């Protein structure tokens, strides 16, 4: 009936020396005890409120007892709220953990520090209603700024309207998934399961919440795992997969991702063992970088420029190791032939001069170094070759190699390459007949958009060259000229001026290409020739 059981009453009675308290007495006392206790607690709560506290302390109970003119209970003074502990085996029995203290210890112990005296400190809680971001105010403490950089920013502009942090909730499944993927990446990147994981990363639609975690993970692991070739490769594969995933909106995290990727491209050392094929990793990363640039280059205007600048700096710094040069070249090459033409080729000659001694047995005794130099040379050659191939490929192929071509002593090689390429050439290059039909369409389309024309006239796009290039083939010439004339008739006289300008420009370009091939030949020797399509070869050689 009462929350105070009669046993309690009996125990209390015994404690004050009444041993033979009858059960009835205990039973009728119990409710009264409860009533008095409640009364005292109510008063104690009042005292607590007037002490402006929300936690009841033993002082409040003493004060309440004082109010009732009852002797307070001594020996329970407490500075703060009491810590109750639950008695083992009882659900609702609590006690205060009172430790035994040895007098000797207390006496021998050094005097405790005197408590600090009460004082008052003053600060601005708000200035005209806006809370200044000073350490005395709550929010800054609660919202830990994500990085030091941002912290200083916040302090610069004093009154900040602080937004509460957004709580990022990850479902249990996603957490498990993340753990599994990271575990695979870190330890079992050669297993078949990892391949499955990569596929899943590249296709699953619900992974977006994990992207920040993945970027963070990749950045962390790349930063501290540069010696682990396998790990780096696995990480780059993860990046690749993430990039492939059409459901992921990865742009906001690119800035975090790019440094790691570029690191894997141009780091001095990737992996610590001899057997680590870091060249392959660099090649892979180069393609990765190129794909990122291709996809997001138009969104982030500065992405490609910054990237090429970084790579070029790496390439042109003679102090950097050859492995770094290799990575830079691969990266630049992957960005496309135009990049190579504009950035690499002008620097080719001085660079090769530096590289040459490294490649020679007499000058460089270290076989490893020599090997690296040759790798770099190979990469350069490939880049330059690809570039020049791309350059030449845009010209329409000649119907047949002219008979009066001048052959030099390298004829044999040329013919070899000619033969080899002949098969593929037909597939890649549009046959002249088709071109004749395609050509007019293109020309018309460019001519019909007058607003486009002036720009074209000054810097003709290489892709258009082929259709209007007069010098490449005499057979083609009349064709396009005919067309031009037709258009001129329709559009007016000023057209002729422009077309002639284009023709001049294109002609210049062709000349340049010619010079380019020549200079490349000078630098690389015969190696470059394999990249030049046979028909064009005949023109230049």
């Amino acid at each position, binding site marked *: *009936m009462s929350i105070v059981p009669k046993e309690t009453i009996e125990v209390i009675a015994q404690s004050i020396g009444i041993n033979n308290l009858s059960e009835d007495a205990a039973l009728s006392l119990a409710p009264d005890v409860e009533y008095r206790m409640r009364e005292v607690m109510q008063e104690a709560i009042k005292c607590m409120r007037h002490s402006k506290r929300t936690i009841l302390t033993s002082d409040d109970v003493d004060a309440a007892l004082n109010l009732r003119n009852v002797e307070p209970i001594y020996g329970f003074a407490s500075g703060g709220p009491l810590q109750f502990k639950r008695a083992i085996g009882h659900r609702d029995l609590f006690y205060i953990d009172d430790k035994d203290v040895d007098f000797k210890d207390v006496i021998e112990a050094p005097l405790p520090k005197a408590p600090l005296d*009460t004082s008052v400190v003053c600060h601005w809680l*708000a200035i005209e209603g806006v809370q200044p971001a000073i350490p005395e105010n709550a929010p800054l403490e609660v919202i830990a700024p994500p990085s030091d950089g941002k912290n200083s920013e916040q302090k610069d502009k004093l009154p900040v309207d602080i937004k509460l942090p957004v709580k990022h909730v990850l479902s249990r499944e996603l957490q498990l998934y993340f753990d599994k993927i990271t575990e695979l990446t870190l330890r079992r990147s050669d297993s078949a399961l990892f391949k499955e994981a990569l596929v899943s990363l590249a296709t699953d639609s619900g992974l977006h919440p994990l992207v920040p975690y993945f970027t963070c993970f990749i950045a962390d692991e790349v930063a501290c795992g540069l010696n682990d070739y396998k790990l780096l490769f696995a990480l780059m594969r993860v990046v690749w997969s993430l990039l492939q995933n059409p459901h992921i909106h990865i742009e906001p995290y690119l800035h975090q991702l790019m440094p790691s990727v570029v690191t894997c491209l141009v780091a001095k050392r990737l992996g610590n063992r001899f057997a680590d094929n870091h060249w392959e990793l660099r090649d892979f990363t180069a393609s990765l970088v190129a794909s990122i640039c291709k996809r997001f280059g138009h969104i982030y205007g500065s992405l490609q420029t910054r990237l090429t600048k970084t790579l070029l700096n790496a390439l042109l710094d003679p102090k950097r190791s050859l492995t770094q040069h290799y990575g830079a070249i691969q990266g630049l090459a992957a960005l496309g032939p135009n990049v190579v033409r504009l950035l690499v080729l002008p620097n080719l000659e001085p660079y090769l001069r530096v590289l040459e001694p490294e490649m020679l047995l007499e000058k460089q005794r270290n076989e490893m170094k020599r090997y690296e130099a040759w790798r770099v040379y190979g990469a350069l050659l490939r880049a330059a070759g690809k570039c020049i191939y791309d350059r030449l490929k845009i010209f329409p192929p000649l119907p047949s190699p002219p008979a009066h071509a001048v052959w030099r002593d390298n004829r044999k090689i040329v013919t070899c390459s000619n033969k080899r390429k002949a098969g593929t050439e037909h597939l890649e290059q549009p046959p002249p007949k088709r071109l004749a039909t395609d050509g007019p369409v293109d020309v018309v389309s460019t001519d019909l958009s007058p607003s486009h024309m002036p720009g074209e006239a000054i810097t003709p796009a290489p892709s258009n060259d082929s259709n209007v290039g007069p010098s490449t083939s005499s057979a083609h010439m009349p064709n396009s000229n005919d067309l031009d004339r037709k258009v001129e008739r329709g559009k007016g006289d000023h057209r002729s001026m422009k077309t002639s300008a284009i023709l001049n420009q294109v002609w210049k370009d062709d000349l340049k290409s010619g010079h380019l091939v020549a200079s490349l030949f000078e630098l690389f020797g015969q190696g470059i020739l394999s990249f030049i399509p046979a028909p064009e070869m005949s023109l230049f050689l």
Partner: protein
Amino acid sequence: MDEEQVVKFVETYLKKKGFKQAELAFHDEVQHNSNANSVDIHSDPDLSLLLLSLSQSEDTPARYHEEYRKLRSWTHSSLDLYKPELLRVLYPVFVHCYMDLVAKGHIQEARTFFNSFREDHETVHSRDLQKLEGVLSPSHLEEMEFAHTLRQSKVNLKICQYSNELMMQYLRNTKSTMMLGIVNEHINFQVSPGQPSSISDDAEVVTLIGNSQDAANQINKKEIHWGLLEDSLEERLEKAGGLLSDSEKTEGDAKEGDLDETKVNILKRSVEGGKQGASVKKLKKDKAASATAKVVRPETNTSSIAPRVKSELPLPVIPTEVEQSILEDLRNRVQLSSAALPSVSFYTFINTHNGLNCSSISQDGSLVAGGFSDSSLKVWDMAKLGQQSGNSVLQGENDTAPSEHVLGPNGVKRSYTLFQGHLGPVYSATFSPLGDFILSSSADTTIRLWSTKLNANIVCYKGHNYPVWDVQFSPLGHYFASASHDRTARIWSMDRIHPLRIMAGHLSDVDCVQWHANCNYIATGSSDKTVRLWDVQSGECVRIFIGHRSMILSLAMSPDGRYMASADEDGTIMMWDLSSGRCVSPLMGHNSCVWTLAFSCEGSLLASGSADCTVKIWDVTTSTKVTRTEEIKTGSANRLRSLKTLPTKSTPVYSLRFSRRNLLFAAGVLSKCK
């Protein structure tokens, strides 16, 4: 039903109810008289049935339980239209069922009954339930005032005719005689024709003590003069401002250059309070004359709308130089509104070791007092505090101004002035308007007056019999009011050691007290969940404000004298219209005790400081305007707009104070336990 039976029923009924006198009288009646009234019984089978059931000997406690349960389920399944009204009946019935059970000694059954239905009422009546829960024997019922008054009085319930009929019909049909008895005995239905009222939480629901409601309605009809004092400084300012602006016109032109600069300085200067040197003061004077005369103009206009009343007390005369400085402050006042929020300067007490009970800030913010549970009162001079830290950097140990610091017993420099004299925890402290005196109230039942100039105790006021919870200086000084556990509030003057007036009437502790702006009234908040307004001159209660659901912790009066704000333990703040005695709007937002309230000086904003470690700023003007236009729809949810919540760093806010220039000062204790 034959006659003898009826007589027997009546006899048993009377016996059961313990009406011995009536029983004897009845016997006499039966013996002597013919049975004139028994005819009715014959003709009314309903009534006879009722009597039959009443006299039934199986008056077991189980019937209370059963009948209440039935009534409850019937109420809950009633039509939505009438449900709110019928639900209101449940609580008094519940309480009285419980008390009846206790009174009859069925303690065990009472407890089970209480526990099985208490959840229904927990949300609204938790405090009352806590109190009642302890009642376990008939003697407790007598002893406990709350239960006693409940049993003595009737509850008034507004109910529409149809609901009333529904309920009565139900009770009769189901022969729930117990319930019927309780309803008849303890509930006074105020049947109103027409539609049921939809207001689910008006004052009547919250309080059960019926007679106080009647009394309150009666009392609240009294006339009060809430207008401001005539010839107050504010009023004088208008004239003075006009004069000054005329006379200073020539001077003002020269000073116009530094106007902007000084404007920026206003805030800074008012923080520094006493710090400012003579040069600054001069600057202030110059500027006050020329610049702010225009700014003040609209404000004085609004305050002059309030009617002027004569003071009923002889008021102290303000020295002219003080008057001058006050006038300057008024001229320099920053205009606050929902668009222009105040700056808040926060004083954080550190290392209080859980001992700080209260804090108080002087009018200009330069002095801060703290009352501690170790009976001490400590006063910090913030102006010196600033200097000290400045000096310590520059001069280090060689401080050549020993008079500025109070030396502790060991010669250790203290940053504060220690006032010792009380014998119990200090529960409240208040600065006189001029900052030259402090009053403190303590658990030792005394109030002490201290001088901040002499750093000494001057007077000890004894009069209360129990701890004094609160003490407040009147807005003009000299008089002060105190509130105590002895359920009285008292008015004192500084020069007498006995109280001038004793305000008795609250049913529980008087927890807080506040002066009206015109010094003719004081408001008191109590643990009985009401706020009362008292006439200082007559000592009469002139208003009772009912509506809070828990103990009132703080009060504030609007500077125009029209409104009052009160805050309670649950974090609810209520705005009251003094003239009508009605709640203008409840302010919800805090989720813990609101320790302090303060109106900005022109009354446009209300600041509240709470144990939930926030200072909230509320827009007063919009809400009061709304209610004035829609006065018919009182009770509709026109809540005050919360303008801003300023969280502190785990520091519950103990006191707030707007300076005369509308800078908000706040004080609180850094609490580590989190």
